[in-house]
């Protein structure tokens, strides 16, 4: 299989893409020319301007189709591949029993000013997401969902109270990198509050995160858009299993 691909419109190799954008100029012939110039600089050749319409007095909206001159080298693509096995709820429960011999405690929250609980709820609530039940459904996982706009010191305190094994933080709506600042603040607070080696697993999720940025953010794992509850649950048992390797049972006679 070829390692180089181009966008697919209706024929292999045609490179066709569509895009839309607005330029801050009134709609006239010059504006349309400007749109085509931008398309060319973005690597579309030839580019077709299929729609242009004024958006108010000083702006024009464009839809452009064109053939991308760029190639994608599949062998140079870097992603965070799942490095743990995907388990069913039953297997997750069994793994928790085996490695912890007590329920796994998960504390979840939206921190900072973010009031959008849709992400954390999708992972934690029984209702779940994408046809999968959330972590509350797992008999061996105990969930404490703190909801929205939880302050970092409160999160640390509640995590200690609950003796959390893992802390899940969601950041959905963010501006000016607030999700990054909040997450770094959170991970720093946990490292300060816990003795080294006893910090709960810190997991953040949200559509704007870069899944490869865990180390930079000071957390154990970053989950992006479309993550399902079973992925999170499988990750938790995998990571905790590594931390708490099963000790051989002592035989007393």
């Amino acid at each position, binding site marked *: 299989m070829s390692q180089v691909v181009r966008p697919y419109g209706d024929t292999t190799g045609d490179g066709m893409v569509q895009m839309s954008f607005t330029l801050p100029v009134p709609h006239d012939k010059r504006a349309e020319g400007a749109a085509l110039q931008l398309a060319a600089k973005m690597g579309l050749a030839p580019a077709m301007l299929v729609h242009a319409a004024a958006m108010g007095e000083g702006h024009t909206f464009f839809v452009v189709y064109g053939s991308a001159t760029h190639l994608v080298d599949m062998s140079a693509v870097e992603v965070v591949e799942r490095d743990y096995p995907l388990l069913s709820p039953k297997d997750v429960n069994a793994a928790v029993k085996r490695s912890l011999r007590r329920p796994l405690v998960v504390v979840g929250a939206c921190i900072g000013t973010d009031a959008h*609980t849709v992400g954390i709820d999708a992972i934690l609530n029984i209702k779940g997401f994408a046809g999968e039940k959330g972590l509350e459904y797992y008999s061996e996982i105990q969930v404490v969902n703190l909801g929205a*706009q939880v302050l970092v010191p409160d999160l640390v305190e509640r995590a200690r109270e609950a003796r959390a094994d893992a802390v899940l933080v969601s950041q*959905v709506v963010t*501006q000016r990198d607030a999700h990054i600042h909040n997450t770094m603040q959170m991970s720093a607070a946990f490292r300060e509050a816990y003795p080294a080696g006893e910090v709960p697993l810190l997991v953040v999720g949200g559509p704007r995160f870069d899944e490869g940025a865990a180390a930079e953010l000071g957390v154990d794992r970053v989950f992006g858009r479309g993550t399902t509850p079973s992925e999170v649950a499988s990750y938790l048992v995998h990571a905790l299993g590594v931390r708490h390797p099963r000790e051989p049972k002592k035989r007393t006679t």
Partner: protein
Amino acid sequence: MTAPAPPPQLDLDPRTVRTARALAERLGRPVVDIARTHTTVSVERATLRLAGLSGGDHERVPWVNHLVDEVRAQVGLEHGVTTPVWDALRRGEAPDLLTLAQKASAAAVSFRLPEGGDRTRARRAASAAVRPGLRRIDRQRAARERLVARHGDPEQRPWIYLIVATGDIYEDIPQAQAAARDGADVIAVIRSTGQSLLDYVPEGATREGFAGTYATQENFRLMRAALDEVSKELGRYIRLTNYASGLCMPEIAALAGLERLDMMLNDSMYGILFRDINPIRTFVDQRFSRQVHARAGIVINTGEDNYLTTADAVEAAHTVTVSQLMNEYFAKEAGLEDWQLGLGHAFEINPAVPDSFRMELAHALLARQLFPDAPLKWMPPTKHMTGDIFQGYLLDGFFNLAGAMTGQSILLVGMMTEAVVTPFLSDRGLALQNVRYVLNAAGGLTEDFRPPPDGFVQRRARQVLAESVDLLEQITSEPERAGSAPLLEAIADGTFGHMKRPADQGKGLEGVAVKAEAYDNPAITLMEADGWGGSA
């Protein structure tokens, strides 16, 4: 876009409707009793704002906060702050209210609880000081009526409601004016995320906000002036909306009345459920803010759409109806009239569910028929906007269609980039194009759409109403504890939006005080004595 026919009718049993309202009243009354017997720091600060105290120190801490905090530290909150404040002014502690607040911030004033004649005179002085603030609210209400008469209301229903939220008031203004020129009838300036949890109202024109712009008196004034300008240009009165919610609900309501905002987000339970604000704080603040809104002729917008973002829109449909009934009861108790009740509901059913659109029609018609004289606010899909903007654009089209077919009053324009980015200029333009097309093409469908008596839509609406009555009955039968109310117990149990919010927890609890026998608040006294719809 011609005036559409009245919305289609459902065969609802009038007895069931009466039962639902009676139950809502039974649930609401004990909560109103709690609201009447408590005060909060924010109610007291709002009263001082009506007396004209504004501005803040070099760190932008408002003088109203300094003054209330200092009075509280010296003599407590339970008598209200106005009596000790105007007593101090009468005793010559400071020549005027602003100086008194400034001295109080340095703890250089001594407050006392005056007795006898001193008390009477202090209260009279406080009342005289608050009255001009209420008069200014009355004048603003009259000004709105005059401008609506001059420029006119939008030609079509629903009114088109659009959000701007750049964080910078000077960026918001041209965007809001452009949106009005592009067809918006109502402009909402979303607040900076997190403002609801600030226990003070920021000051001045602001240019730094997160996913929204701070609500300040100056920002209100600037935006209202800009919309007055564009109203004149367009020959259509453009309404302005902001948020009276969070810890400063009463103060924001007062500022909105003073600066002639036209609509305010103001839900009875939203702060409790979604911001984890203490329930008692919320109900006390809410009652005062609604009294101010009633006086100011402001239309409130309630937040039932939010329940459906956390709970399932089919299973939890009846919690929306229950919340609408509660919001209606609390609003009317505080003096608001039907035309001021922008009760909320939303198009949030999972589009993958069979018959989702038919259910949306049923739910929307149910609200329409239960509250025929209320300007219902119809909210667009958010939960099932996935980032597939093309599917999202279609879903918004169906949302617009449901709004048109069921005679909704205020339509919040949905953005295809919901949950992706803050809307681009072009997203807004495309969204308005969507609304215009649907209203133009199908606005008249209210005439043709007649759901058959025992068809799907009618049955579904009756089912939701019946479930609402069941839930209300179930809550009314909660065991009552001293100092609590069944509704508070239900909120603590997670009945609404799956959020558990006990009455003795939550943010802002420390700002609540039980009123003493001798509590006095001239603003409340004047608002309750004058009645509402106050003449200028």
